[in-house]
């Protein structure tokens, strides 16, 4: 594989006695969307600020497209597009003027045409003359994203890009990121696990300044889940005879009834037991309403990895339910 676009080695940042990130190591390649997942205060923003050359690390090294973030910071800054968590906008400018200012500052060639192109892409073209101060939160977020992609950076670093957006906008922004991710390298942080699952080729789970897991969302699931978990719904109550039969099936490890008409079955690792379950249910005279494989969500993986040592993790894992609702 070609040389990694983002290379991080033993990256450490301390604020006085507090260790924000502790010897991080990771890489990202061209065309990859890398998710940075962790509770608030885990060190995501700190890492991103170092990668964008906003501040230097205390120890360790980071290179973007082969350039060191400290020694060759101007080169790094030319190649990185950054959307900080607090979207940095100038309220006194119009949407277009804001992009033109940023474009000129970054030396974008043919800045007028490019600004319009980007505005079209984030769906703000008809608001080009509005003052930034009059934009809704979702529009501000999209303008922030427009600013980040304006100079066609090799690396796009997005700190919580969908925070505060309504569901339609979340979908739009995600589509946009996916589109950009096919050409560029994207590093995005989120504490919305479903987002990482949908968007990212690979996720890094970070907690208390350390990487606790790194893999594709699918592999992470497979690694931590063990056997299949199957949900079954039937009409009417599940009788004892059916339970007995199911328990005696080969490859079934555990059968539980979370509700009178529901079954939750855990299979042994590597076993496909759904056909037998379906047959058994029907043979015992029940109507089968639903049978479905319950994949372990990243939420569960996350909780398992982060464990009890991080009270913030709970809040972070719960957040999607409210924000995605």
């Amino acid at each position: 594989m070609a040389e990694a676009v983002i290379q991080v080695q033993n990256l450490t940042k301390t604020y006085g006695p507090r260790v924000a990130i502790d010897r991080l190591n990771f890489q990202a390649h061209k065309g990859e969307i890398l998710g940075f997942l962790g509770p608030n205060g885990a060190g995501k923003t700190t890492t991103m600020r170092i990668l964008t050359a906003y501040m230097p690390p205390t120890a360790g090294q980071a290179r973007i497209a082969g350039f060191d973030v400290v020694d060759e910071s101007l080169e790094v800054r030319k190649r990185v597009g950054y959307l900080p968590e607090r979207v940095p906008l100038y309220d006194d400018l119009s949407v277009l003027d804001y992009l033109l200012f940023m474009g000129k500052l970054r030396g974008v060639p043919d800045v007028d045409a490019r600004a319009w192109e980007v505005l079209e892409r984030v769906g703000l073209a008809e608001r080009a003359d509005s003052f930034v101060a009059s934009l809704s939160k979702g529009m501000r977020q999209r303008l922030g994203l427009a600013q980040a992609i304006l100079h066609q950076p090799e690396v796009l670093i997005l700190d919580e890009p969908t925070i505060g957006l309504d569901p339609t906008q979340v979908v739009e922004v995600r589509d946009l990121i996916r589109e950009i991710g096919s050409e560029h390298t994207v590093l995005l942080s989120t504490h919305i696990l479903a987002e990482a699952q949908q968007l990212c080729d690979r996720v890094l789970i970070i907690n208390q300044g350390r990487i606790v897991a790194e893999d594709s969302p699918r592999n992470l699931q497979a690694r931590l889940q063990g056997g299949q978990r199957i949900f079954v719904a039937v009409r009417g109550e599940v009788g004892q005879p059916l339970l007995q039969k199911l328990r005696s099936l080969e490859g079934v490890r555990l059968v539980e009834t979370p509700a009178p008409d529901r079954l939750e079955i855990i299979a042994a690792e590597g076993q496909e037991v759904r056909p037998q379950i379906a047959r058994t249910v029907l043979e015992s005279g029940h109507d089968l309403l639903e049978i479905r494989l319950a994949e372990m969500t990243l939420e569960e993986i996350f909780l398992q990895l982060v464990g009890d040592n991080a009270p913030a993790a709970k809040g972070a894992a719960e957040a999607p339910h409210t924000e995605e609702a």
Partner: protein
Amino acid sequence: MHTTWIIARREFGRYFATPAAYAVAFLFLLVLGILFYANIEASAMRSFMMPGYAPGVEIIINPMTTLLVFIVPVLTMRLLAEEQRSGTIELLLTAPVRDAAIVVGKWLGSFLFVAVLILLTLLYPLALNQLVQPGIDWGQVASGFTGLLLMAAALTALGTAISALFSNQIAAAIASLAVFLALWLIGYPASAGGGASSVWQYLDFSSHFFNTLARGIFDTRDIIYYLSVTALGLFLGTVILEMRRWR
């Protein structure tokens, strides 16, 4: 440098987009107008008693120096403090722009605005020229206004540096005013005598103006003094911005 100029233009334009800057400009010109009127009236009385007396251009230049000390903090307080408060500093510091270019650009924008204010007041010498016989000393106007511009450059540079220290505009304004007043008054204890008096007197902000430039005398030492203070302010501003990164 190109990026410096982009930032300067943006900063200069911003003054015309904010009511606060207009208010400051209005106040500056209003107070100056009132003082001009009062001085003309006083001079008329005086010339009545002392035939041949005519006021010089110092009745315009001298009050302007005091006004600068008070309006510059209000005009420079926002420069970097606001970027830090709103988080847009992240945008500037992650753009391919040197820290020095940010500071110099910010300073240049504010200096140009103050320079426009100062140059607007050239109307007063023109008016005064009509009122007195045999006209005013245009050499004094040239040196006086050069001095005012130099002074404005130095004060805005210091104001820019102080603004980099804060993320609260009001705190930046008050700190700037305190520093300006200290520089302004540093010569007074020195004039009372004492061993180190010449050093203090050299550092004194106002004596470099009132003893020479305001009287129509161009002295390289004064010009160098104001240019050095300007350079020092810009250097300190850059260092402060860089230190922000390392914190």
